[in-house]
């Protein structure tokens, strides 16, 4: 391993600009002549928009225009779309309701944008918004997914009877029924996976600019995938042809899924910029983000696990209602289906699985991918069932897991996935050692002496990353391919620019991608620059989400570097007057095998461009290669997290006293960065388990609509984390990478709940397990015990 190559904990190249205040986020961009947009949003969960009177607002100082859904429709701006077609079990297609960028005719959730006010300053736009008079006819609303399909629930969209988008299923119902008939024990759970607000610390922003000279548009936005934004805005919304729309996503301050999607505000900024002939800038306020950014999770589930007399799992049956909100966001349909039910086998050899998912509309903010996206929900279901099952059967939860682990690979699950590699026993064993699992009893007695209840909870999770191959996801309904591209531009002086279709928003690609180049070409990190996030520079790419940048994006980079090396060898052969097959490239030097004749990397790069040593008709001058990489399979990171918790029975307050994570991410490019990803994921998972909850009242008002009401994890809510790894390489990509971005958020929530329920001795506990919720669960359990 070189000091800057694969496996080295290199300090990040991108950090200098961030720690000196020189980052370049969308809100830091200001265009000459720009005006400011402010969105007027519906205060009602469901209402008919009878009229919008904007005369008084339009006359306010500084106001340039007030635009509504009527103008948007008149200009034939297309609707936003959901790009993954799900087919119901009866063969019908999912019911996608129209989603205009500005509400037209009706508003369907609190926060639905009804009008946009464009003014010289933001303050003027806000002042004018108060003068817009919208005449609403308020209609009954439904926010609770469990109520959405009831006969008495209001129907939100004409296309979706009983607010049902699809009724989908996966697996073998008959085989599962037989397993349950024969079962010696069945564990049953009702689970609510709480609705979350992603809350990347950088709020979303967009700037639209129109150039009349070239009749082209530019969008700066906070996007995780600028090319897909360009594609959708061109092909479906119809704002501009793809060749005359440039999308730039500069530094982006965290995404966690919420910046994957194509949102109304960016469409409106582009449309309005052309309409008024001025750049239009919009930056979300945090409270606005609560009403306008896609939320995450929100499942209501009943799940059952069948066991034989030996503690072996024989069947799993899951029924979930997934809330997709008022409109179908860009990838919403795929999250509770192909990213959820396909992971329900967990790390276990389960012969029969059957899962039914109903997706419903409600009068709430759209729900889409949020860190983990379907996989935390699946992990929560299976890891709760296994833990509770073990407790009911009187077995050690670690032993029950060991008994059921998949031990041979590849392993075909009953729910599509074919696990390619893993060693679940190894990660469990290492985690239990690091967590001193055997010493728990002693620690519990000590806690007891201090009047505290102590619990320990496990989570042996699996996830599927690097979603692909394109052919497979296409057959499941995905509207795009999920390959990645890379282009390696070698300069005449030997320095290199790598253009990637991935996008970094905290992941450190400028360092890790450069490490791969440094190792391969034997050049210093400083001689490598990573270019991303601009559709005029990078030809095409699918962006960054689903922990795909390493497994898919770096694989594309490796493929491009293979081509660079092959071409450079041809140049070197000409320079060294040797046969191409005799050229060996190692440590940045081309050598003729068996001789002392050699040429340095930089000399070969220069010769590729000056082209003096070869006939340009026989060998093309230049050194630039590109590659598209489509993986052969998903990757399957997995691991074991152990949470140890102390509960104060007087107050219900939980304190995480220890956290151990042992993850298998395959090959790791930069362990420092990977550990950082694990830390952050755990924090988000702990947030879901203990603190975070997007709460709607029965009328569809978001009760937790700001950071004053929605509890984000703070430094004090988290312990020092013990993070370690085991390694089995993925056979599905050239470097053996699996992906690490979501693991913490997938593993953590259920580890916390398993620990708290272990401590308090009752399984009746929903997330978030606030002090109040835990205290109430304890009282209820005590009362039940007394009554018995």
């Amino acid at each position, binding site marked *: 391993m070189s000091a800057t190559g694969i496996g080295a904990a290199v300090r990040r190249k991108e950090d200098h600009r961030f720690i000196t205040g*020189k980052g370049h986020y969308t*809100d830091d961009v200001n265009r000459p002549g720009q005006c400011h947009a402010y969105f007027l949003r519906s205060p009602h969960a469901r209402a008919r928009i009878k009229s919008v009177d904007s005369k008084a607002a339009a006359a306010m100082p500084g106001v340039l225009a007030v635009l509504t859904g009527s103008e948007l429709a008149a200009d034939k701006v297309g609707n936003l779309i959901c790009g993954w077609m799900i087919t119901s079990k009866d063969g019908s297609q999912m019911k996608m309701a129209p989603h205009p960028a500005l509400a037209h005719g009706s508003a369907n959730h609190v926060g639905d944008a009804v009008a946009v006010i464009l003014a010289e300053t933001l303050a003027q736009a806000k002042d004018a918004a108060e003068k817009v008079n919208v005449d609403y006819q308020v209609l009954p609303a439904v926010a609770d997914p469990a109520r959405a399909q009831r006969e008495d629930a209001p129907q939100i969209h004409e296309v979706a009877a009983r607010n049902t988008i699809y009724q989908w299923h996966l697996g073998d119902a008959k085989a599962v029924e037989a397993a349950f008939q024969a079962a010696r024990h069945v564990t049953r759970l009702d689970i609510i996976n709480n609705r979350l607000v992603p809350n990347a610390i950088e709020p979303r922003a967009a700037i639209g600019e129109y150039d009349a000279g070239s009749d082209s548009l530019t969008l700066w936005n906070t996007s995780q995938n600028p090319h897909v934004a360009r594609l959708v805005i061109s092909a479906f919304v119809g704002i501009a042809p793809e060749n005359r729309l440039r999308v730039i996503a500069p530094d982006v301050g965290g995404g966690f899924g919420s910046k994957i999607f194509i949102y109304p505000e960016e469409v409106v900024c582009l449309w309005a910029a052309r309409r008024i002939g001025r750049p239009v800038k919009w930056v979300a306020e945090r409270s606005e983000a609560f009403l306008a950014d896609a939320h995450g999770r929100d499942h209501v589930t009943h799940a059952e696990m069948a066991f034989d007399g030996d503690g072996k799992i024989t069947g799993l049956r899951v029924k979930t209602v997934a809330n997709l909100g008022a409109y179908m966001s860009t990838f919403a349909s795929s999250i509770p289906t192909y990213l959820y039910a396909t992971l329900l086998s967990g790390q276990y050899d389960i012969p029969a699985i059957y899962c039914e998912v109903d997706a419903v509309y409600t009068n709430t903010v759209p729900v889409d991918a949020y860190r983990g996206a379907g996989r935390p929900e699946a992990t929560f279901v299976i890891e709760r069932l296994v833990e509770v099952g073990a407790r009911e059967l009187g077995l050690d939860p670690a032993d029950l897991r060991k008994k059921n682990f998949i031990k041979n690979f590849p392993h075909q699950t009953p729910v599509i996935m074919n696990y390619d590699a893993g060693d679940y026993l190894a990660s469990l064993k290492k985690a239990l050692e690091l967590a001193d699992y055997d010493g728990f009893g002693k620690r519990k007695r000590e806690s007891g002496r201090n009047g505290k209840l102590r619990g320990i909870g496990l989570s042996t999770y699996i996830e599927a990353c690097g979603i692909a191959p394109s052919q497979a996801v296409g057959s499941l309904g995905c509207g795009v391919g999920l390959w990645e591209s890379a282009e390696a531009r070698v300069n005449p002086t030997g320095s290199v620019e790598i253009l990637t279709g991935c996008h970094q928003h905290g992941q450190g690609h400028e360092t890790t991608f450069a490490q791969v180049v440094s190792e391969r070409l034997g050049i210093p990190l400083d001689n490598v620059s990573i270019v991303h996030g601009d559709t005029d520079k990078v030809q095409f790419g699918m962006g960054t989400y689903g922990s795909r940048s390493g497994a898919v994006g770096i694989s594309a980079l490796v493929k491009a570097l293979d081509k660079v090396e092959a071409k450079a060898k041809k140049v070197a052969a000409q320079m060294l007057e040797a046969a191409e097959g005799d050229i060996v490239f190692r440590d940045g030097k081309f050598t003729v095998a068996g001789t002392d004749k050699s040429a340095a990397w930089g000399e070969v790069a220069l010769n590729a461009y000056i082209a003096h040593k070869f006939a340009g008709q026989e060998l093309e001058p230049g050194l630039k290669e590109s590659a598209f990489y489509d993986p052969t399979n998903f990757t399957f990171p997995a691991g074991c997290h152990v949470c140890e918790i102390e509960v104060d029975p007087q107050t219900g307050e939980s304190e995480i006293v220890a956290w151990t994570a042992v993850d298998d991410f395959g090959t790791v490019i930069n362990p420092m960065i990977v550990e950082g*990803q694990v830390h952050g994921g755990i924090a988000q998972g702990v947030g879901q388990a203990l603190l975070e909850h997007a709460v709607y009242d029965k009328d569809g008002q978001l009760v937790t609509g700001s950071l004053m009401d929605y509890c984000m994890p703070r430094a004090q809510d988290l312990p020092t984390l013990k993070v370690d790894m085991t390694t089995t390489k993925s056979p599905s990509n050239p470097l053996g990478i699996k992906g690490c971005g979501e693991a913490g958020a997938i593993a953590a929530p259920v580890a916390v709940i398993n620990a708290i329920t272990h401590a308090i001795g009752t399984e009746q506990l929903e997330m978030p397990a606030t002090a109040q919720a835990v205290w109430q669960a304890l009282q209820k359990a005590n009362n039940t015990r007394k009554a018995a």
Partner: protein
Amino acid sequence: MSAVALTVNGKAVTADVDPRTLLVQFLRENLRLTGTHVGCDTSQCGACVVHVDGKAVKSCTAFVWQLEGANVLTIEGLADPNGPLHPMQEAFREHHGLQCGYCTPGMIMTAVDMVNRKGHDLDDPTIRHELEGNLCRCTGYHNIVKAIAAGAKAMEKGHAHKT
């Protein structure tokens, strides 16, 4: 409009501003010091922390007209542009105390203020408690806590810095 004169990163600045202009807006929009960020609208996140007369202040909570004659230090002024990084900046880099970088300027300004008030030997609970006004969504705080402890020690060693 309100006239205001103050010092920002050692330079005298004057302006005539709308009275509702917040300090953070003045820094970002008038002075183009975009290192100070806005992450919320309820003074929870701390992305906008700067120093006013040597004390950490959330720049979204002050009107700029309130700061007549004040001495404001932002992330851009923490280290001499031609000199080495401030030890706290260096510690965040060394300990991977940042990912997306958006909360980072506020974190660093809070951390320096923490050292000024609490000294150079900061234990884990103290740092975590002191960070209650700063949100990070990326790092899980683990490496931020490590960075601040190390940065505090490095500041003691007499590296040239302004606070």
